[in-house]
């Protein structure tokens, strides 16, 4: 389907960055079109308790928070397309965006496609994925009730996963390749207080063991290179994220880890294409910071379109 209408602003992504941008663009009378994607809602759809988003004194569940943001965007007549973007053309204006079934033209674009979980990318992990190896404790914890599991990683995500699993599993071992955590101190302390959570520092996964399902792991000591094995029922990988920028290669400047290169947080290498959230942020990666940059991008576009006239 070809849509000949030229949109003022198209927002790609519907996590906190994309939805905050759409709320502001809609209220700024830019009538935004959001290409929400098949993974609508983003990483918070895979999170349970969110205790650090301002305005929710009792905390809120990730999916519920995203539903509220989307409803708020809908209240101001944001339009949504629930498809993925397949390709873009940013060479000339109007820009062109090809989704699964539509070609869309736009005067300006906000890219807020976020990031997804990263894997270790060793063959034994990929072979046993779905057979004891998982990257989503919220999804799969249920299948490990009263079992013995490990969580690999040292950031907020890893410790949140461990927190969730500690309520379901008999024992949770957090395996981290460094000797200290990058995660928030509050999370680390909370987990240290749990009886069924233990920490294995300076260790990394050398191999996931098992034929049809996970039976154990072989660990490598990052200081001494000494190998050891432990039996385990499940392995949850939480070693960070990779930005969702595959469709942008060759169209925008990306850094060596494929994050979008930005100036002043929201400006991409192409005039008229703005950036918001985790797709360019490997430092803060918070719902609130993503929303903040979405707001900045939306307000900047108002000004940008005004001057283009």
């Amino acid at each position, binding site marked *: 389907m070809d849509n000949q209408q030229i949109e003022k602003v198209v927002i790609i992504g519907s996590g906190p960055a994309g939805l905050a941008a759409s709320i502001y663009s809609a209220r700024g009378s830019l009538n935004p079109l959001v290409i929400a994607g*098949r993974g609508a809602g983003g990483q918070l759809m895979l999170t349970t308790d969110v205790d650090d988003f301002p305005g929710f004194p009792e905390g809120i569940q990730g999916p519920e928070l995203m539903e509220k943001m989307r409803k708020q965007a809908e209240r101001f007549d944001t339009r949504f397309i629930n498809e*993925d973007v397949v390709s873009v053309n940013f060479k000339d204006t109007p820009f062109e965006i090809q989704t699964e079934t539509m070609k869309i033209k736009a005067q300006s674009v906000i890219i807020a496609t976020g990031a997804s979980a990263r894997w270790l990318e060793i063959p034994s992990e990929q072979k046993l994925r*779905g057979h*004891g190896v998982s990257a989503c404790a*919220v*999804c799969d914890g*249920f*299948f490990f009730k009263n079992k013995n599991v490990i969580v690999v990683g040292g950031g907020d995500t890893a410790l949140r996963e461990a927190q969730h699993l500690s309520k379901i599993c008999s024992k949770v071992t957090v395996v981290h390749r460094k000797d200290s955590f990058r995660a928030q101190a509050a999370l680390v302390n909370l987990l240290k207080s749990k009886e069924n959570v233990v920490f294995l520092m300076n260790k990394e996964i050398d191999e996931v063991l098992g034929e049809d399902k996970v039976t154990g792991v072989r660990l490598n000591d990052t200081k001494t290179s000494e190998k050891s094995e432990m039996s385990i029922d499940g392995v949850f990988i939480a070693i960070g994220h990779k930005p969702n920028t595959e469709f942008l290669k060759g169209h925008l400047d990306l850094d060596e880890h494929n994050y979008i290169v930005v100036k002043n947080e929201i400006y991409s290498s192409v005039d008229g294409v703005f950036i918001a959230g985790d797709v360019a942020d490997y430092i803060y990666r918070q719902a609130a910071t993503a929303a903040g940059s979405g707001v900045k991008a939306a307000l900047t576009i108002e000004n940008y379109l005004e001057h283009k006239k």
Partner: protein
Amino acid sequence: MYMADKTFTDQNFAADVLESKMPVIVDFWASWCGPCKIVSPIIEELAKEYEGKVVIGKLNTEEHTQIAGELGVMSIPTVMFFKNGKRINQLIGAQGKDSYKKAIDEVLTK
């Protein structure tokens, strides 16, 4: 509203999946699983598109734990492909609609 996709349960699985004359696609899901919500509408679309050729439906692993356990489901969403009572393929984790279509077309041509 008419729904083309079927609901599979511990009770109807043997008759509706294993003894089905047509190939059957089963989407294992649960309410707390975010990526399952990505797959769910795709499954509904596919059920319409392949109606009459393939039986496509969902099994709630939270309510129907027995079949999921027997089939060794340890991660959701998992989409399994059955033909003549045998599991011949499975896709683990949320994938794009094209991946599911490709896998269904393979089942149909095999």
